[in-house]
Structure formats: C-alpha cells, structure tokens
C-alpha cells in the first residue's frame, strides 16, 4: 500500500528469495520458480519434434472462415486457456505482482522493456503505462491476448513452441537449449513448456483466473487488426445433453443440502471433520467421500446423486452420472458449476419434483439455498470451470422484489431516466414473469433524452451529482436494468421523464406519479406489488414538490396513478416497472407531446428536484439511510468527538444521553459497548438493544432477525451502509473481550465512531474489518420505522 509498506514487502521478498537461493545451493531440494524475462519474439523455426495443440483450439489458418477465432466454447480452450495457465504460473493471476529481482511485473510478468514492445506492436493504449503492473487488468489481458493471437498464428498453434517462446525464445531456434537450465532458473525450457501443456489439458486453480480483455479500451479495434473477432469468443455457459433425464433443456429436480446449515444468520458446517472443535455437532457426513463417491467434499463445489428408490440405494436418480460430472445448478436466479463427489439414498419428492440431488452445503451456500427446494440442472462440457466455493454464483435473472432492507439516501445523488430505448425487445423477468423489455418510441425517446440532458445540466450546475440510465438516446436498457441501477447506486432519487399523447401544458396529459404501497403489476397467477413504506412516503413527498415546480412553469400538472391495464403488450397494473423494482424513491413524469417545450419541462423537473432533495455536501460516496440507519449516524455524530481525540473526557451530549437513555452506566462511559448501546437506545432506533457488552450485542444482532440483517464476511467499504454496527466477539459470547463500533460513512478523514474501554470516550475513527480478535460481524438495522412503531 504505502511506499514504506511496499518497500518492506519487497525487502521481505528479496530476503526470502536469497534464502531460497542459498538453501537450494546447499540442499538442492528447493525449486526456484523461473525468473521470467521475455525477449524479442524470434522468427518461427524448428524447435522440437513434438507438436502440442490445445484441445478445443483447431488450427488457425488464414483461410479459416473470416479469420475469426473459434466460437462458443472455444474461449475456454485455445488462447484463453493458455493465458489462464500463463497468468497462473507467472503471478497467480495477480495483476499488481512484481518480481523484486527481475523487475518483471503484472499478471503475465512482463519486464518493462518487453511490455513497451508488446503494447507498441499489439495494443498501443497500454503503452501509456511504463510497467505492466500499472496498467488496469483488462489492458494487461488485452496486450497478452493480442500478443498470443500472433504467436498462435506464428507457431501454427504449437503450444510447446509458444510456451518456449515465452520462457526462452532462442530455445526455439537452438534445440540444445531446450534441456539446459537457464541461469537463474531451476527448470529447463522443455519442462516449463510441458508444464504449460499439462495444465492447459487439466483443471486447477488456473481455470478460475478471469480474463477481461474484452473490457479493455479499443480492444475491438486492435483485435480486428489482429484478425480476431472477440465478440464471437464468449464465455456463456454451454448446455449439453447428458442423458434422457438431463436433456439440453435441463431438468427441474428436488434438492436437499447436507454437511452444513444456515442457522442464526450464518452458514456453518455441521460435521465433526470440518469443525473438530465442536464434537457435539451431528455427524451428517464425514467430508471425505465414500462408496462410489470419488473425492472429499469439504472445500468443493460438489453434489451427491441420490437414488431412484431410497431403499434400493441405486444412486441413479440423475441417470447414473460419472464421477466428477459437472452440472450447472440454478436456484432463484443464481447458477453454479458443481461436480459429483458423492452419492446418497434420497427420499420423498420435494414440491412435486423427484428428489434427485443433494447439494454439499458449500454449494447450497453459493446458491443461497437454505432449505430443500427445487433446482434446475443442466449438463455442461467437462472443461467448464467449477465455481470456487469462495466465489460467487452467477446471477442469471433479476432479483425479485423481496428486499426489506432499504437505504434511502438524503444527499443529492440523482438518477435521471429518459424514457425508452433504441430497440423493441420482448423480455420477461424470470422471477416475476413481468414484462421488462423496453420499446423504442423514437419521437418520445429523442424528446425526453434531450430534456433529461437539460435537467442534468441544471442540476449539475447547482452542485448535484447526476447520472442517467442511458448514455445515448439510442441505447437499449431494459426496465429491470434501470431499476437495478438506482438500487446499486443507492441514489437519493430516480426520475423518469416521458411524454405522451395530448397537448403540452394540458392537465390531461401532464402528471407526476410516485410509488405507492400496494400498487402492483401482474401476470396471470403472479402478482407483484410495491411494499416499501418509507420509500413510498419519500417518493410521494418529492412527487408533490415536482408537480408544484412543474405547475409553476405554466404546465398544469397532477399527481396521479398510472394505469397499464388493457395494454396487451404489457403486464397489467398501476405502477411502472422501474418504480416497482426500485428500492429508492422514484418519480415518474409525463407531459403532452404536441407543442412539446423541452426547456420548460426540464426547468420544472429540475426545480422540483432541487426543492425536494438537499444538495450534496462534499464528496460522500455513502448515503444516509432512511429510518434507523440514518438516525444511528445522526446520533453517533451528536455523541462522539469529531476530531479523533483519544481521552477520557466525554462530550456533554454523551454524558446526558447515557444518564437519560442508558442509566446506571455512567461509570463505564469509556466503553465501546456502552457507546453503541447508548446510540441505539438514545436514537430510539431499538429500545430493546442490550445496554452494554459485546458479549450481549453480537448474539442479540444474530437473534433479532426481524430487526437486523447480519453479514459475517464483509471486507470492503463498498459493502457498507452508514449506521452499520461492527462487532467482534469470537462468535460465541464466551471469547475474549471484543469490540464494537459504528461505520458512519465518510466524515472528513474518518468513517467510524467508537469508544474504547478505559482508553477513550466516543470519537471518530477508522473502519477496518478484522483484527487480532478475528473478523467483524456487521449488523444492519432494517428500516426501522417498524421499531419506532412499536415504541
């Protein structure tokens, strides 16, 4: 991180290197990893008798179609596979890695001069970076990809020669060098190349290394120059038919989970092999595999094939899959790639579907499947990378409207949503079945986009942060994506700008629509309604302000509902899709198209926004949350010193708050638990919050699921919301004295508020995620008017 830290690390690395070098001299038992120093690419020439072509990557020829790389699954073979292995061998895939001895750096460990040459020849945008490690990962990937497009062609797909060219290029010309260990290395070019070949033909950690070259600036342009069409080299999953049960279209089957469970707000192993400290856990599985099972389970994204007949123990419910057979398993819009590592008996059907698969708990955790349910399974090719247990399932559909934890920011970050897209598409949300595809409506689209740009200009000049759901009027962004943007960005307000039939200024064609609890959209048999009370209230307040401001421009505006019923192409109901799926306040505007006055429309909307939403103060990437979270921050601000001082003098406000709201603890005010409790009690966010003690606070957060979401493994500020409670206490309440404090968002150079026992009174501080006591549990108050209502 800091220069000092880097130096320390480099120093340590050098020491380790020297130690390893000396050890190897005396013991000859320690292998030194190859020090990679690329040289200029040699001319093609005979190097070795054998030829190795990676499976799945047919010979590249000038006459191969239009010069494109193979399509579909070829991205998992060919150059991608080679680059994954290369990145793994050189840097374990870490784009900032540097070799302190050779100076080689980045994901592919280019020395600076080679990086300059490779980028100049293949990918000039990368030349602006002196060292590979300084370039964003996608640019490193782009430079390497385009370099190896050339090399694959140059060496006629001979991976052996390509690998040698990477390790010691002149060994491709002088065969005698193939079996000699170059100075400073421990292996020969042949051994290096053979290892690359072996790895490209097998799976391992390298298969999980992601390549981002398609995201690099101007990549398409330079790929085209290199004769590559990257758009045809996609990473989409390829589904295959495995048998009559698992056809190409997949199969829905009943699924159970084992080896672990979701309890008290977190996932935990439930077998004694995985948790030797706890012998009282049930012996559900030994985690080692047995019977037909081909391997251990712990730490693997695995499943067990159950039996057609539980009594017969035939283990053929999925058609008797081979060991390690990979499946794409989809649950609630998430998909993982898991492999068969076990078998089981089975049991009664689940929700009418045959119970056919038992998910190892780490697989279920990835899918967030907390209890038995129905999953969809597909066969996938054997070379499809497994989802790592520490990774994430792929979101394959939109999230349903179930989130109850809402953060409605009050600072001025605005998302403008000009209506319609550059194409007509029929899309459905998988979870709800609702129509989320957008339509083109060119006249309206062009009008409203210009208006949105004007609104943005006005707001930006006034000091607001403004984003738009489209960059160009012709962009296609479906309705769910638009809502998701607002949710991900946690904006203070989203505003849709539309126009409709009728005259500009007529009240029959001019209205503002807020979110309303109970408003809905539906398809036959599936009803989805808006439930977020706090958001609706804020949306209605802002809608009124915008209506007033628009009316002040001469436009006769009403606040009224929408009605989509009777329009065959849309889901029925009375709330727009973007508002329905939004977790932040969203206001929808319509105006007449005849005599359209974009300036007037823009001014009215902008004036309304400025009256309703406070201008953003400074740069605070976090938002104040509605209800409890915001109240927590406000109270913490009121009770803590703001300068980070460390001392035993409290603010008067804190003394008063303890005395009145957390009585009996005046003698223990310099204590983290007392401070957190006092904020929670004094703010009235949670009148039942424990009065003190991390021993009490952590179990309380875990137990009170109606009041708190808990997160055991957060590790960056991007995952936090101001008002989050950090607590570490060894998880049991029986460990050593823990610590607790608030994340409060950016407050100058601080972002936390904490007190410390006998050390200092509440003051601003710095957030971090683990210390000598372990990792912090984060508790997040759920909206909170529900608590207030109970007072």
């Amino acid at each position, binding site marked *: *991180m*800091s*220069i000092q*830290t880097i130096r320390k*690390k480099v120093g340590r690395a050098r020491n380790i290197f020297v130690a390893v070098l000396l050890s190897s001299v005396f013991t000859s038992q320690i292998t030194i990893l190859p020090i990679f120093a690329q040289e200029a690419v040699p001319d093609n020439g005979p190097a070795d008798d054998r030829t190795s072509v990676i499976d799945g990557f047919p010979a590249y020829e000038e006459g191969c179609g239009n010069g494109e790389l193979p399509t579909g699954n070829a991205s998992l073979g060919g150059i991608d596979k080679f680059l994954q292995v290369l990145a793994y061998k050189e840097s374990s895939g870490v784009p900032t890695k540097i070799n302190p001895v050779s100076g080689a750096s980045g994901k592919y460990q280019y020395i600076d001069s080679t990086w300059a040459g490779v980028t100049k020849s293949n990918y000039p945008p990368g030349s602006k970076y002196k060292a590979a*490690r300084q370039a*964003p990962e*996608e640019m490193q990937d782009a430079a390497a990809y385009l370099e190896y497009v050339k090399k694959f062609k140059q060496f006629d797909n001979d991976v052996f020669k390509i690998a040698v060219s990477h390790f010691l290029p002149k060994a491709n010309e002088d065969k005698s060098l193939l079996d000699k260990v170059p100075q400073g290395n421990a292996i020969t070019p042949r051994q290096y190349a053979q290892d690359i070949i072996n790895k490209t033909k097998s799976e391992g950690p390298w298969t999980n290394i992601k390549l981002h070259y398609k*995201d*690099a*600036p101007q990549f398409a342009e330079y790929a085209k120059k290199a004769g590559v069409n990257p758009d045809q080299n996609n990473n989409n999953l390829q589904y295959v038919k495995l048998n009559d049960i698992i056809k190409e279209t997949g199969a829905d089957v009943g699924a159970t989970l084992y080896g672990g469970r979701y309890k008290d707000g977190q996932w935990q192993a439930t077998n004694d092999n995985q948790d030797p400290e706890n012998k009282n856990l049930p012996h559900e599985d030994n985690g080692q595999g047995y019977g037909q099972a081909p391997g251990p389970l712990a730490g693997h994204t695995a499943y067990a094939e159950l039996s057609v007949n539980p009594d017969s123990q035939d283990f053929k419910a999925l058609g008797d899959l081979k060991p390690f057979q990979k499946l794409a398993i989809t649950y609630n819009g998430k998909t993982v790639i898991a492999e068969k590592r076990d078998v089981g008996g089975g049991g009664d059907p689940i929700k009418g579907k045959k119970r056919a698969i038992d998910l190892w708990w780490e697989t279920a955790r990835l899918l967030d499947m907390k209890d038995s349910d129905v999953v969809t399974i597909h066969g996938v090719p054997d070379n499809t990378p497994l989802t790592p247990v520490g990774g994430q399932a792929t979101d394959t*559909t939109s999230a349903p409207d179930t989130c109850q934890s809402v953060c409605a920011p009050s600072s001025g*970050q605005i998302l403008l949503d000009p209506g319609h897209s550059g194409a007509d*598409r029929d*899309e459905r949300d*998988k979870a709800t079945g609702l129509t989320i*595809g957008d339509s083109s409506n060119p006249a309206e689209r062009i009008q409203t986009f210009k208006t949105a740009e004007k609104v943005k200009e006005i707001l*930006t000049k006034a000091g607001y*942060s*403004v*984003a738009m*759901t*489209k*960059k160009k009027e012709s*962009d*296609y*962004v*479906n309705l*769910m*994506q*638009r809502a998701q*943007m607002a949710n*991900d*960005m946690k*904006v203070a307000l989203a505003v849709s700008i539309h126009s409709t039939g009728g005259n500009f200024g007529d009240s029959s064609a001019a209205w503002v629509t807020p979110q309303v609890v109970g408003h809905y959209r539906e398809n036959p048999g599936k009803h989805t309604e808006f439930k977020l009370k706090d958001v609706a209230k804020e949306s209605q307040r802002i809608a009124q302000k915008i209506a007033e401001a628009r009316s002040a421009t001469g436009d006769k505006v009403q606040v009224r509902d929408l009605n989509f019923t009777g329009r065959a192409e849309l889901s029925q109901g009375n709330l727009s899709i973007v508002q329905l799926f939004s977790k932040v306040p969203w206001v929808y505007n319509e105006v007449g198209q005849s005599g359209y006055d974009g300036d007037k429309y823009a001014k009215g909307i902008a004036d309304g926004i400025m009256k309703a939403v406070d201008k953003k103060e400074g*740069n605070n*990437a976090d938002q104040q949350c509605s209800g409890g979270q915001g109240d927590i921050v406000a109270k913490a601000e009121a009770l803590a010193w703001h300068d980070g001082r460390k001392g035993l003098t409290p603010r008067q406000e804190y003394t008063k708050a303890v005395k009145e709201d957390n009585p009996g603890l005046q003698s223990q005010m310099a204590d983290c638990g007392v401070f957190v409790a006092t904020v929670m009690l004094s703010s009235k966010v949670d009148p039942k919050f424990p009065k003190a003690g991390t021993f009490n606070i952590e179990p309380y957060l875990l137990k009170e699921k109606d009041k708190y979401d808990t997160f055991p493994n957060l*590790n*960056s500020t*991007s995952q936090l919301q101001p008002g989050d409670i950090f607590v570490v206490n*060894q998880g049991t309440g*029986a460990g*050593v*004295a823990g*610590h607790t404090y608030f994340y409060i968002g*950016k407050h*100058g*150079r601080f972002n936390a508020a*904490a007190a*410390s*026992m*006998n*050390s*200092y009174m509440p003051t601003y501080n*710095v957030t*971090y*995620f*683990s*210390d000598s*006591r372990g990792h912090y549990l984060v508790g997040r108050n759920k909206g909170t008017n529900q608590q207030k209502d109970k007072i």
Partner: protein
Amino acid sequence: MINQRQLLIVAAIVGTVLVMIIGAVLAFTTNRTPENITDAQLQIEVAPKGSEIKINGKSVDAGTHDIQNTPTTLRVTASRKGFAPQVQTITIQRGENRYVGFALVSNSPDTAKWYEEHEIDNQIASQINSNIYSQNTVDIASANPLLEQLPYLGEGLRFRVDYGQHQRPGPPAENMYILISAGTPEDRQAALDWIQSQGFSLADLEIQFADFSNPLNPTTGSTE
C-alpha cells in the same frame, strides 16, 4: 607561616584535583544520557493475568522492559494452559517505546467462560484490545493515507473508490487494498486518474476492480 610560594603550590594542587573531579563527573554524566541508559522500552500486557510471557525464549513478567542493542527483532510469546498461545514478532528501534498486548483466547471448555468469571482479566483484556485497536487505526491511517479520502464517488457517479482488507494474518495496515467500482474501462481509467491526481502512485497501491452495475455501461443488453 606559609609563604606565598607554598600557598601557590597548594592552590595549584587543589585546583588540579578539582578540575579532575569535575572532569570525571562531566565525563560520566555525558555518557549517561537517557538514550544510553536504555536503548528502547517494551511494554507487555497479557490477559489472563499471570500468563507466561517470553522474549526470545526467555521468561519475563508483564510490564515495561528495557531493551538494549537496538535495532533488534524480538519474538514475544504469551501462553497459558487452556488458551491458544499467541506470538508477535517486532523490530524495535533505538529510542522507541513499544507496546505489545496479548488477550489470550480460550481453546478449552475449561476456560470457555474465563473472562465472564474473572472480571479483572476481562477488564485487562478489554484494555489490551482497545490499545491494539487504537494502534491499528493509527497504523492504517499512516501507512495508507489515501484511505482518508475514501469512499470517494467520482463526478457524475461514474466510479466509486473504496478500500478493503484481506482476510489473512498480519497487521491490518499491511492488508489493505483499494477497490475501484466502475462500469466501463473509461470509468476505471477515470478512477485511476483520480487516485493519481491526489498524489498517489498506482505502483504503490494494491488495486482491485469490481463491477459497478450502473447506467454507465448500458450496452450490455438483456439480463435474460
């Protein structure tokens, strides 16, 4: 009668002796500045009270210890039956006053409720952990000055810069990284440019990139 010559001789002798005494005193005190009395000091605290502490294998008591021959690297351990032992290796510089605290954690059912049942040890452990927390925050801030400006939201919500912490052993200050969330390569670059504009070298930072599902990459097509 003592003549003037004898008086001068006596005065000379007395003067010489005085000069020698003053010189000796000055020489002695000059070599005994505080820095030379003690090179450095190390304060050690441990909970539960009475746990065994060793510095480089030699048993010592809790409290403050004088450290000579600095700079030097010390391996400090704390152990007690029923608790997981802990070790800290520190390099202490001349003139430094360092603090090392150990709040041992139970690893046996026999001691699982130790801190609940031993109020004094609980208070000592709390203080130790407070000191560690305070020191960590100072270390994090001084080693990673960019963190003071984070989270940062780029103009027009184009990107967001956060920080994160690896879950691995070691001081938190050495486990921090910068996390850039941006939807497009251009916005990623804008984030990098912003970091550089604040006077930080990208080469000195561990930077990770995360997707930022926002309006800035609208050409990604359907979620279906």
